[in-house]
């Protein structure tokens, strides 16, 4: 895995240095640095109120910043132009607009805003709303509504797509479908920045995860390596002659080989586990508090 530094500006979709934003006396984002490489999926993780949404809304050109340098697709999002807007896609949280329009009408209408939109029918198929295309948006379930939001976000063939907690309220099957959609978009070289509360989602989709807490990025890394997860102690447990036994090991393969010899082949009730992303994440958030 390449590390954060040493990238030239050209390879970066997003570059943030020393970003600062306060609302009155409460500081939402302090001295935040972040790079998003072109073509990657970056997940922003963090507790509520950590500054995720503020950061993303500054990148989306919705919110002004107090200080710091921000470049999104080579431009300052503090001065958004229509041409720049046509290159980014935004999937917002909790939009409930246009209750009386059908899915098809809504997507076809929004296609008129973009210089080179995808085919509205294709987009509806892509997000899995084909059967609901004639339904009024107020008749859609929460999950279907979110898929419509995604459809509108990707309609203009964005180079960079922002997703703010996109799968909140999805059932497990809808979530899996959504994940494959994100992978598909990413295969088409769409850079994706998503915020999420679901660690499995970050693990499933993200090339890199940035953990935000109290307005700062406390660590950026691949899901497998975040917080030293790959080198963390592994827990090996098995059923011994006198009941369950557990041993922490830095070299689990050796331990298992030894156990296998001891039991003459199969080790009864063998379990090997490394800390989950959730374990690591909670430890990081806890330590920062």
């Amino acid at each position: 895995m390449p590390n954060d530094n040493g990238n030239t500006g050209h390879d970066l979709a997003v570059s943030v240095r020393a970003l600062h934003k306060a609302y009155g006396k409460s500081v939402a984002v302090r001295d935040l640095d972040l790079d998003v490489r072109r073509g990657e999926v970056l997940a922003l993780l963090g507790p509520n109120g950590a500054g995720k949404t503020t950061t993303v809304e500054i990148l989306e050109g919705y919110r002004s910043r107090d200080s710091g340098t921000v470049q999104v697709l080579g431009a300052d999002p503090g001065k958004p132009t229509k041409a720049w807007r046509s290159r980014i896609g935004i999937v917002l949280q909790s939009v409930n607009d246009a209750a009386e329009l059908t899915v098809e009408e809504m997507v076809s209408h929004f296609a008129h805003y973009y210089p080179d939109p995808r085919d509205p029918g294709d987009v509806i198929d892509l997000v899995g709303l084909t059967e609901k295309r004639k339904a009024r948006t107020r008749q859609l379930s929460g999950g279907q509504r979110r898929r419509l939001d995604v459809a509108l976000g990707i309609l203009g063939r964005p180079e960079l797509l922002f997703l703010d907690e996109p799968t909140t309220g999805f059932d497990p099957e809808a979530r899996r479908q959504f994940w494959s959609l994100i992978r598909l978009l990413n295969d088409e070289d769409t850079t994706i920045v998503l915020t999420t509360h679901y660690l499995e989602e970050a693990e499933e989709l993200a090339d890199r995860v940035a953990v935000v807490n109290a307005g700062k990025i406390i660590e950026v890394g691949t899901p497998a390596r975040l917080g030293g997860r790959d080198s963390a102690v592994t827990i090996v447990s098995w059923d011994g002659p006198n009941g369950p036994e557990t041993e922490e090991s830095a070299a689990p393969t050796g331990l298992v080989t030894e156990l296998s010899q001891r039991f003459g082949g199969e080790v009864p009730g063998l379990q090997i586990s490394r800390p989950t992303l959730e374990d690591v994440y909670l430890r990081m958030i806890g330590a920062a508090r």
Partner: protein
Amino acid sequence: MSATAATATTSTRGTGRKTQGPLPSALRVGLRRGYIEIRQFLRERDAVVFTLGFPVGLMILFASIFHGTIGHTGVDYRQVFISGMIASGIMSTSFSSLAISIAQERDDCTLKRLAGTPMPRAAYFIGKVVLVLVTGLLETVLLLAIGVIFFGLDLPQSGARWLTLIWVFFLSLIACSLMGIAMSSVPRSGRAAAAVVQPPFILLQFISGVYFLFSALPKGLQQVAAVFPLKWMTQGLRSVFLPDSFLGQEAAHSWEHGKMAVVLLAWCVGGLVLCLRTFRWKGRRDG
């Protein structure tokens, strides 16, 4: 994880995308917005009843209950009332409808979503203009037709009066639309919008010569009403539908077309300035 692989393919596709077509023009997108605005309006039964139906119902009710000749003018009270109701209808389809619907659209993030797309911002307002023109015209024709068919209202008697109807209609519609757009920033939430917008409008109707003869109101109220457009709109419509024999009942004993145009134009200019300075694409919760 495929960060490296994905980065490698990006540069080729990324440059290919820069050759995109021209951005759609504000007028074209605006007309498209007008079309979906009208579609949404007609599908929303509440809005149709509230905005279009309410003035019609009131007119039928009042015109059925109250009638009788006013003084020696030879003019039936109904004709005065219907003129005022048409003015109210114009204000209802522009001021109330825009103030309420935009406040709701700000609250449900319609505006935020639009602001995040390359849609030219003027297109949103062009769409509202189209909506207001169509609903305002529809309302006026509806009230006029009911007035003529059931309550003995005479259509304008000369070309000059038709001309007055046209300029008063458009100037009123523009002034009230701009006031409505500015007013949309006042309610704290979409749900409170109707409760915040309707009372001042109803109050204004009582003091602007819609339900009562304007000249019969106390002088103080007349002066307050003269600051706002509705008083001038009702007067303008009376000058279209009532004979000059009614002038004796007008507060100024004149239709005051010049003054009327000046007040309505002043509201257009003031409203535009207010809109430009106060319009927000985000709700209060969004900070």
